[in-house]
């Protein structure tokens, strides 16, 4: 009897494994992916990287320019996140189970949130560029819209987790809706909200690089320029300062989280 159970379990694992193999095979066929080329490129890229992709003395003279671009990216990441957050918070209040005012409003809020979250960042960038041309403003707006979508969901989950007992208690005491929100819900969830803000900023630094690459601004553009002019030493310097900034932000955010959470 128990022998059957074991084989059943093993059959399940095998089925999952088989499914993954089929998926991989199908994907390789569909994309006509050349595995051989993939692996040789992998090796080639590492060999090339070690022999060419490091900063040289000459590239250090570009450092002030690079840092200026990095500063631009840093500002845009924070500005887009922070300015998107009040709008996201408002929508999250509409959509959250604990704080919602009206059923239809909730559905609408969740729908809007889902739309903005699933709309790819590049699509925003491409569409905005048509009118705003290549500028920092375009990058800011694209990140603003992308952050808005992500934050709506994150904030909604935070608000959902606020103890409904707290709200019930105040409702029972006859407190009006807005005072419940400002006196109870917001203070109870503020640390998590700030934590998500910090997370969004970290993510936006990376995404800003991509958007900058498309919109010709910030650190992404700096990389593009050096890369296309085969100045790989300077390009590697861009990578290094980006890594330093991202890791510094991560470390800083974690330190702040330890204090506030």
């Amino acid at each position: 009897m128990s022998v059957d159970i074991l084989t059943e379990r093993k059959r399940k694992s095998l089925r999952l494994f088989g499914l993954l193999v089929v998926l991989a095979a199908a994907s390789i066929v569909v994309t006509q992916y050349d595995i051989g080329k993939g692996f040789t490129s992998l090796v080639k890229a590492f060999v090339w990287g070690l022999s060419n992709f490091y900063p040289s003395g000459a590239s250090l003279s570009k450092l002030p320019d690079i840092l200026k671009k990095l500063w631009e990216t840093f500002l845009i990441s924070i500005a887009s996140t922070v300015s998107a957050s009040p709008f996201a918070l408002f929508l999250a209040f509409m959509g959250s189970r604990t704080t919602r005012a009206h059923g239809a409003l909730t559905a609408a809020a969740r729908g809007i949130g889902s739309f903005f979250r699933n709309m790819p960042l590049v699509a925003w960038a491409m569409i905005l560029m048509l009118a705003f041309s290549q500028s920092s403003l375009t990058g800011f707006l694209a990140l603003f819209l992308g952050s808005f979508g992500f934050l709506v969901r994150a904030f909604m989950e935070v608000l959902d987790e606020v103890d409904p007992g707290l709200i019930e208690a105040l409702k029972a005491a006859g407190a009006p809706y807005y005072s419940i929100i400002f006196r109870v819900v917001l203070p109870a969830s503020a640390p998590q909200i700030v934590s998500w803000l910090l997370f969004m900023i970290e993510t936006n630094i990376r995404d800003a690089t991509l958007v900058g690459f498309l919109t010709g601004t910030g650190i992404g553009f700096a990389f593009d320029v050096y890369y296309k002019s085969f100045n790989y030493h300077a390009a590697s310097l861009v990578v290094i300062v980006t890594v330093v900034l991202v890791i510094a932000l991560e470390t800083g955010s974690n330190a702040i989280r330890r204090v506030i959470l």
Partner: protein
Amino acid sequence: MWATVAALAAITAYGLFTLDSNGVNIPDAIGETLRNFRTIFLHPESRRLSAGAAAWELLLTVAQAILITLFSGLVSLGLGLLGARNLAPKPLTQAIKAVIAVVRAIPSILWVLIFAVAAGLGSTAAVLGLSMHSIGYLTKAYAESFESLDYGVVEALQAVGANWWQIVFQAVLPSSSTYLLSWTFLRFEMNFTNVVAMGAAAGAAGIGFDLFMASSLYFDLGELGLITYFVLAFAILLEIVAIRVKAVLKER
């Protein structure tokens, strides 16, 4: 906490104030963008790209996302086991975590371009470059899943004389499989978006490249709308599946 919020607000104010709009007349641009939105979302059209072709391009994008997810998942499984504090010696776990943090900190577009030097711009470079970032993410997630396991179970199997491989396959993986699967699926969603992005930015095959062509080359708003709808529909579908998957896994 309020100090953090105040600091962020101050940086934001400064950032907005110094934002370079490149001489664009902002009200005009907003008006134009809104008009564009109307065309894009209300009048999607297929001119160069038929709906069937768009579906194929979408499939191509998904297939690349699957390849990236499976390849990086496999590598991350190994690295995650070696990077988990309760399963590997400390110097090794610290080394892996440090390398992984750097790999993760490099934006995926830069990874793709670095690989493009060796492989040329296109799908090969995109798959390899995005895999790097995906490995950075999944290794961290997997290692943390393993670390959250009850150490007693590992200890119990050590006490019966089981070796490392047996402990991994009989205790660690069965206990953490649901976490691994939901992290992997989450990453698949991200990889899909990333492949779209690399199509637009680094010439990877798929719907992202069409997006780029429609907007930057042809300025074809109708087609841009069609493509956007395809991507959006698939992303929402993935999100719904992800919620289902999570619910099912939670039950098991």
